[in-house]
């Protein structure tokens, strides 16, 4: 086995830590004497160790037969792992299964991040998705089972499409490495695989499962889906893009689907009454911006700085969207009607949500603005002028509901359905932290630079 270099195991270290953690969680759960509280902390420890191990992975492009590592992959792994922390901390599991499922899903995402082979990508995808279906099913909402089944069938379809694409690709190229395949079969294979990525990302027109799933999930789980899972799906798409032959062939299609996704998500979100559903459509719109960033990145020959914009967007989005879902958990609010006049009853809580909404809307000086700005910038450099303009209009439309929510909270008197419940205190602290981070990151975008020198490639 010396043929498989030590670099191979190096790259898998975080995933190994997660796997050990998952086994420990299951073993601890099997024992009657261990409380679910301990189980939760075990899972959190596994994530923390994985994050530490991720730091030790050397920041260079490594290509092995099955695995590869690069800056974007390592950076997004940090996003996945961070996204899981509030989920693990806030979930109130009846037994050891949900924490173990979260860890399992994280292993899958980690594999997507380091996979250098279509088969490995598939394994990562399945390992990520299957626990996600089960987590939805175990949510408290009455529609949880229905949503889970819908999610499962949509996900199953995506997997089938992906496998079909992979088979076509194999027929054309004779291998499963991430490289272009010749001929129409290769092109068809890539198109099918990209369609599967659209499914996972919730890109229009493969988005139909997403609002139901986000609405039925517990808020902290929906927050994880909208940040961690979305980041993994973006990475999945980013891994497929270089396989186009000729290079950049996917760019126009990607850019137009991105615009469609941005506009569709923004317009439909305007009419939503359920807040989780509204944020779900908003996450569809944001996914469109990420697709635009991927398109710009591909158009510029996969240059590192352009990937920096994508990474920054996802990192900022982690705080903005994750924070918004966690705020829903903290405030115990479910519908727009319950928001009416909230600022009078709970000024601090309303202020936190207002900051998160302004960040999601992309108003300076928040991280949301810096993120959108970087994407616009890269799109302009890539010459995607018309998609860029339409994306800007999408941002304008989305302002209609982000500002609308602030208006509901601040400018209206309390409605007929004032909020009764208040969520757990830790959720409040997480939401506050996310709001603070989404402002600080906007004021000082170079904070990201300190974490991993050169990650952003922003410095001229």
């Amino acid at each position, binding site marked *: 086995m010396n043929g498989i270099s030590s670099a191979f195991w190096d790259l898998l270290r975080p995933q190994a830590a997660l796997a050990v953690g998952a086994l420990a969680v299951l073993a601890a759960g099997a024992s009657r004497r261990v409380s679910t509280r301990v189980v939760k902390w075990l899972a959190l420890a596994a994530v923390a160790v994985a994050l530490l191990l991720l730091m030790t992975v050397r920041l260079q492009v490594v290509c092995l037969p099955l695995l590869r590592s690069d800056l974007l992959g390592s950076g997004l792994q940090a996003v996945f792992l961070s996204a899981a922390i509030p989920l693990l901390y806030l979930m109130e599991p009846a037994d050891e299964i949900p924490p173990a499922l979260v860890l399992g899903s994280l292993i899958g995402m980690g594999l997507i991040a380091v996979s250098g082979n279509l088969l490995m990508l598939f394994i990562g995808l399945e390992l990520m998705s299957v626990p996600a279906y089960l987590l939805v099913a175990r949510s408290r909402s009455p529609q949880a089972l229905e949503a889970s089944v819908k999610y499962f069938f949509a996900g199953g379809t995506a997997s089938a499409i992906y496998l079909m694409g992979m088979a076509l690709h194999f027929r054309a190229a004779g291998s499963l490495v991430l490289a272009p395949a010749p001929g129409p079969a290769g092109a068809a294979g890539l198109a099918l695989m990209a369609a599967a990525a659209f499914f996972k990302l919730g890109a229009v027109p493969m988005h139909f499962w997403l609002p139901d799933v986000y609405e039925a999930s517990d808020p902290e789980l929906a927050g994880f889906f909208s940040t961690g899972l979305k980041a993994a799906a973006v990475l999945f798409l980013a891994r497929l893009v270089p396989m186009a032959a000729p290079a950049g062939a996917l760019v126009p299609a990607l850019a137009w689907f991105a615009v469609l996704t941005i506009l569709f998500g923004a317009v439909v979100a305007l009419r939503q009454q359920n807040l989780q559903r509204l944020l779900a459509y908003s996450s569809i719109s944001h996914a469109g911006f990420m697709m635009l960033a991927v398109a710009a990145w591909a158009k510029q020959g996969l240059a590192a700085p352009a990937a920096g914009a994508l990474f920054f967007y996802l990192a900022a989005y982690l705080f903005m969207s994750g924070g918004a879902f966690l705020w829903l958990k903290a405030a115990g609010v479910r519908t727009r009607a319950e928001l009416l006049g909230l600022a009078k009853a709970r000024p601090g809580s309303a202020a936190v949500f207002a900051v998160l909404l302004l960040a999601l809307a992309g108003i300076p000086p928040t991280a949301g603005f810096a993120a959108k700005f970087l994407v616009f910038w890269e799109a302009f450099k890539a010459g995607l002028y018309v998609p860029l303009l339409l994306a800007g209009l999408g941002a*304008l439309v989305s*302002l209609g509901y982000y*500002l609308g929510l602030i208006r509901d909270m601040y400018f209206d008197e309390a409605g007929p359905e004032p909020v009764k419940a208040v969520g757990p205190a830790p959720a409040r602290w997480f939401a506050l932290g996310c709001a603070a981070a989404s402002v600080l990151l906007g004021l*000082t975008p170079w904070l990201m630079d300190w974490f991993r020198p050169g990650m952003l490639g922003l410095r001229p």
Partner: protein
Amino acid sequence: MTQGALTALWLLPALGGLAALAGGRFSRWIALAVSLAALAYGVWLLGPLRTGVVAAAPQSPGWAFGIRYALFCDGLSLSLCWLTAFLTAACVVASWKKDYSAGYWAAFLFLEAALMGVFLARDLFLFFVFWESVLIPMFFIIGLWGMEGRRHAAMKFFLFTFFGSIFLLIGSVALVTLQHSAIGVWTWDLAQLKGPEGRAGLMIFAAMALGFAVKVPIVPLHTWLPDAHTEAPAAGSVMLAGVLLKMGVYGFLRVLWPLFPRLSWQLLPLLGLLAGINVIYGAFCAMAQKDLKRLIAYSSVAHMGFCLLGIVSRKPEGLVGGSLQLLNHGITTGTLFLLVGFLYDRGHRRGLGDYGDLAGRAPWLTFFFGFTTLASVGLPGLNGFVGEFMSLLGMARAWPIMAVVGVAGVTLAAAYALPAFQAVFLGAPGPGSVSALVYDLDAREKGLLWVMAALMLAIGLYPGPLLRLLEPCLLGLAQ
């Protein structure tokens, strides 16, 4: 004048805003102290500016793509900062008796900080960040403390400006990227940027001009203005008309003219025509209004048209006159909105037909309203005349026909302002009049208005110092 000295000018109100937010019942005192301190500090900065110590090119490292934190200051920036600080202080005094929460006073200080940032920014990116930050406090001022239609007006205000800002941002990105591909250096420094020639230049100019035009506002992008001004609380209208509209013209002067000296001169027919339309259209709309606040709001559209006529002409007198008119309009229209606010506090109506014969009941209110109306329509000896006259003089040299249109606009101004004054203060009260509720101004209100009136008279009789302050930074733009 170092970067630090200029940073203090916007940081002071920003920190003051935080203090006011936490200040509870002392918020209004904090707001008053901070806004007066900012005004005093701004006036003190005139000394360093006079001695010619203008901020040198900043050496601070930027964070990415040449974006830097860089401020600078000349006569135009400084005088607009004075206007901002002065009107903020006036707003605080004017709403002193109101039972508003800490957020109200903090919002005005945050607004002041963001506006100062706009007028001081030397880096285009920084300019944009401040430009957008202005929206947040103003959104809350309109939406939380405004009139009946405030919810709708606040959204409309934000969405319209954001629409323009998207084009401004895309135009800026295009400008900087094209400059980078031309000379190989990333920079957002307004002193180093040069607009490209040809079609790309035209498109960038159009995109950025659209962003500024929404703010001015140039007809037909003005439809947010009457709603926002009418529904905002009195002090909010003062800031909107007094300072926020100036941002647009300032953008033309500070960003577009230096970036595109040739192109903006070639576009004189188009820009001049738009300015002329503003003057005439605003005046006719004002004539048709039955609501006093709405009438003044439309008169702002006409007045901003005069500013545009001046700066578009690109003659020295036009540029200086247009800039002076920015300050004049800030003071006079700000005062008019304050007066309408005082009137509304008493009668709780704004309609022209709701009052009548106030001259006998409230002589001071009548005096100040009349005085300010005369300043607003450009009576010689008061401030409005100087700015309008110089603007028209500039236009007469560049494109005489538009100057004639402008003169017609001056006449129209008298035709909408004086009948309104007559209806409210001199005419017989109609049925359902609430004139009986109106009592005269108290000492605080009178004191504030005396200061305003003194400024109008002073600028009208002796505009020399202000003109000399504005001249050096504008002559370079003359054609």
